[in-house]
């Protein structure tokens, strides 16, 4: 090996490890009772004096254990051609068992109380991380570098409970719960009706399963179980918030006193559940509507995107459905910067060590087909810490990242 001159450094690695995790809210082995105004009551009929009540608020589970993640990995790191080219690759396969997770809250059994945490089933993640870098200088005046990172993982829920039909839902999006976690699927997959366009004519209407308000100009819901009726039994998995891969690229260039860096970041193949359309595209909430309203189906606009406008929308219009699913892929120019260092000759006259002027733009441009404000929400979680990871990639109106322009001076005295 020593004699292979183009190899500067080479490392082959393999690993095995187990990691425990207990990152759930404190005290969840105990059942807890609280007193608040929702538990107080004016038993005495005084109109203004309440009696104090207590009821169960958190359901404890004394049998809770750590969850354990077992990870196996194998990889290679290499630096070649005098450290000009660096290369890294790692493949991993991790299995989380005794998954610590909040159980589905059976509202009939526990009402408003918070469901207990349980150790449920197992989840597998496998994937790779790849990086490639190159740096060189052409002469004393011109140096450059570039690195590219690509990561990919595949997530699968292997088991949740003894009942293969058992599933957990994510948080509410108004009235629906678009996320479902079930064995055989990636965690927090999207679940709902599948819409195959808009009913265009009599024949299509007859061919579509029955639902209240079904008519020419309304959605063509897919009759999954072929029983001629569109109801909750016709929902299915409709998308995944997990990307095929994520990537980034970092490049830099120095020429004489100028320096230039640029950083791209992207995600490919993840779906976003664009819940903001609930408010903007349907008659489900007062307020501003999207321009797509103008492109509603009508006998003269049969290519319309939205169903025919109505004060009394057909059944299921506000249910979770494939209408909300969008390709969340994006490539974003996260950072671009151009700097200029004053030359030594000037600095010495001014009696300072360093003076650099720069202009910078953050989030200057995003390439995406996503129609919402910002596609960079793919792993954002919503709500408190109580349904960790069961609710991913739902855009409930996430605050978009800002495009920022900065002009600056670095001064070293």
């Amino acid at each position, binding site marked *: 090996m020593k004699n292979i001159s183009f190899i500067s450094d080479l490392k082959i690695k393999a*690993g*095995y*490890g187990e*990691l425990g995790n*207990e*990152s*759930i809210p404190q*005290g969840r082995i*105990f*059942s*807890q*009772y609280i007193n608040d*105004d*929702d*538990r*107080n*009551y*004016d*038993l*005495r*009929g*005084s109109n*203004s004096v309440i009696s104090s*009540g*207590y*009821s169960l*608020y*958190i359901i*404890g589970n004394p049998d809770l*254990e750590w969850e354990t993640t077992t*990870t196996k990995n194998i990889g290679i790191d290499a630096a070649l051609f005098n450290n000009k080219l660096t290369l890294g690759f790692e493949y991993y396969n991790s299995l*989380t068992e005794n998954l610590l997770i909040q159980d589905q809250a*059976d*509202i*009939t*059994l526990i*009402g*408003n109380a918070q469901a207990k945490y349980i150790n449920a089933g197992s989840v597998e*993640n496998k*994937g790779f991380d790849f990086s490639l870098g190159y740096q060189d200088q052409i002469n004393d005046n011109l140096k450059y570098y570039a690195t590219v990172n690509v990561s990919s993982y595949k997530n699968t829920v292997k088991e949740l409970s003894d009942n293969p*039909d*058992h599933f957990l839902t994510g948080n509410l999006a108004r009235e*629906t719960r678009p996320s479902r976690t079930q064995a055989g699927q990636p965690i927090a997959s999207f679940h709902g009706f599948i819409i195959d366009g808009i009913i265009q004519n009599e024949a299509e209407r007859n061919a579509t399963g029955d639902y*209240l*308000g079904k008519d020419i100009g309304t959605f063509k819901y897919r009759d999954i179980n072929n029983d001629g009726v569109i*109801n*909750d039994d016709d929902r299915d998995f409709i998308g995944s918030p997990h990307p095929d891969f994520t990537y980034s690229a970092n490049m830099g260039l120095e020429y004489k006193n100028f320096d230039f860096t640029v950083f791209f970041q992207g995600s490919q193949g993840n779906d976003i559940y664009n819940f903001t359309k609930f408010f903007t595209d349907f*008659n*489900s*909430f*007062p307020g501003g509507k999207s321009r797509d309203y103008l492109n509603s189906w009508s006998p003269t606009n049969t290519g319309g995107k939205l169903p025919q406008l109505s*004060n*009394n929308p057909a*059944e299921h219009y*506000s*249910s979770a459905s494939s209408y909300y699913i969008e390709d969340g892929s994006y490539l974003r120019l996260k950072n671009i910067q151009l700097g200029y260092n004053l030359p030594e000759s000037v600095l010495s006259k001014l009696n300072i060590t360093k003076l650099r002027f720069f202009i910078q733009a953050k989030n200057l441009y995003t390439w995406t087909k996503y129609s919402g404000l910002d596609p960079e929400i793919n792993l*954002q*979680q919503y709500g408190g810490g109580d349904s960790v990871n069961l609710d991913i990639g739902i855009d409930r109106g996430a605050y978009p*990242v800002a495009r*920022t322009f900065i002009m600056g001076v670095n001064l070293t005295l």
Partner: protein
Amino acid sequence: MRKHHSLETAKKLKNKQMKKVILFILTTLALISCEKELDINPQGALVESVIEFDKKWVDQQLISAYAILDGNPGYFWAPASNWALGDVASDDFHKGSSIDDQPQLNDVERFSSGTTNIYLSRKWESLYEGISRTNQTLVSIDKAIEEGTSKEDLVILGAEARFLRAHYHMDAKKIWNNIPFMKEGLIATPPNDTDIWPSIEEDLIYASENLPENQEDPGRATSWVAKAYLAKAHMFQNDYQSARPILDNIINEGPFQLVSIYHDNFNGDKNNNSESVFAVQNSVNDGGDGFINGNRGNRLNHPYASDAPGGGCCGFFQPSQNLVNAFKTGADGLPLLDTFNDIDVTSDQGITSDIPFTPYIGNLDPRLDWTVGRRGIEYLEWGPMPGSRWIRDQSNGGPYVGKKHEVLKSQEGSISATGFPQYNAINTPLIRYSDVLLWRAEIYADDGQLTDAMNLVNRIRARAANPNGFVKNSDGTPAANYVISEYTTFPDKEYAIKAVRFERRLELASEGHRFFDLVRWGIAPQVLNKYINEESSKRVYLNGANFTSQKNEYYPIPLDAINSSEGALKQNSGY
């Protein structure tokens, strides 16, 4: 600059969350020892192991079970009065407000509620939270006995808990029919494939046998309250034979009496009067936020103007023209049982508040103006109702507003919450004595005891006819042409049944009973489809609505409940 800073912070937070998730998914290699750090005592809550299970604790659990009678925290989606599912879904009320606010309620009104309708999911959650609290109370009783409290000391509290458990189940039964009965100690939801009336009755019988006739706290159930509920349970099964002796017992030996002034039933200063059988005890300015225990269920249902009770929010719950017409009386002072809706009581529909309007001059039942706010009629000391200026969108919801749940102007800040006028302390009536009398009248009518049926109806009408109880103009004269008298004959059984049902509608309008009564009588499809047909000429959004027989009698079971029940719960037929 500040803004930029906060953006940066927001972004960092987001990145942090991302990292947390990524960490979880791409767990790095490490070996960490497993100390039992999961068992750290939580702050700000009582952990089961430190609770002393005694009578006081049992009572505190029971109080929490009473506390959710008002539907909290289901908010206006789970009102105790059932105004949404019981009145808006009937021929009495519209959603009101504007067409695009709370569209789920349009679906309720049009019989097109889906399985995720929030008025259903929140109601379910709130009722079963109530049931859970009653079961917690019952479990605590067992623990208290184990820890040395004498069984006798806990009998009444246990009977109250079982009464409340029956109350919540009965409300759910009326709404969904196929529901599971949740007993104490269950670890999973049982299937909803058996009729749970027997279990409800069992609880009510136990309560009626173990509760005292009087309780010091007027909010607590007594044996008489439990009996009234038991009678109601029988009425809802059309089991007149079982209801009859219970109702007779209540009427002959019970403590209840009609109050002489009809509006005293809806006056926060007259809560818990002799006519109130069981009511939600609303309270305001009671410490804390001061409004949480007020009538939250009706918080949207105030006129849409700042010079009206409720502070201007939000114009929901508007009476139908059909309901207003039902209060017309003939020259004989009796309702127009068959023809009431042929000609409308004139209204200010389409007339702005600055254009003069003369209210209807025909004969009216005085209860109309305690039930409905209409232009030109004195509105609870707030002055004559000014018409469209108080209405959010008259073209949508019509010209009327509700009234029974509103405070008198002089009660601002005492019966309504200071600073939060949407909430007030008028109790929400669940059963009134007139309700009881009219059940008995129904049975008399069905039995062909026409005079007895008529006499009970006339007791209700005589009270309504008390001129001291009329809405008055500022000069003390009656606010409208009130003509009401007692029936002199019920000529046949059919007439008697019709008259009793009609009286029930007039007497109890806006108290959440109407839809459930129509279903119980088996006449919901006829009555409601006729109503939609007639009323849709005024309320265009009702066009195309249809009450489907064998389906819309009961609401769809919330998808959340089905999803979370591990397959135990099945959807109602037709949904």
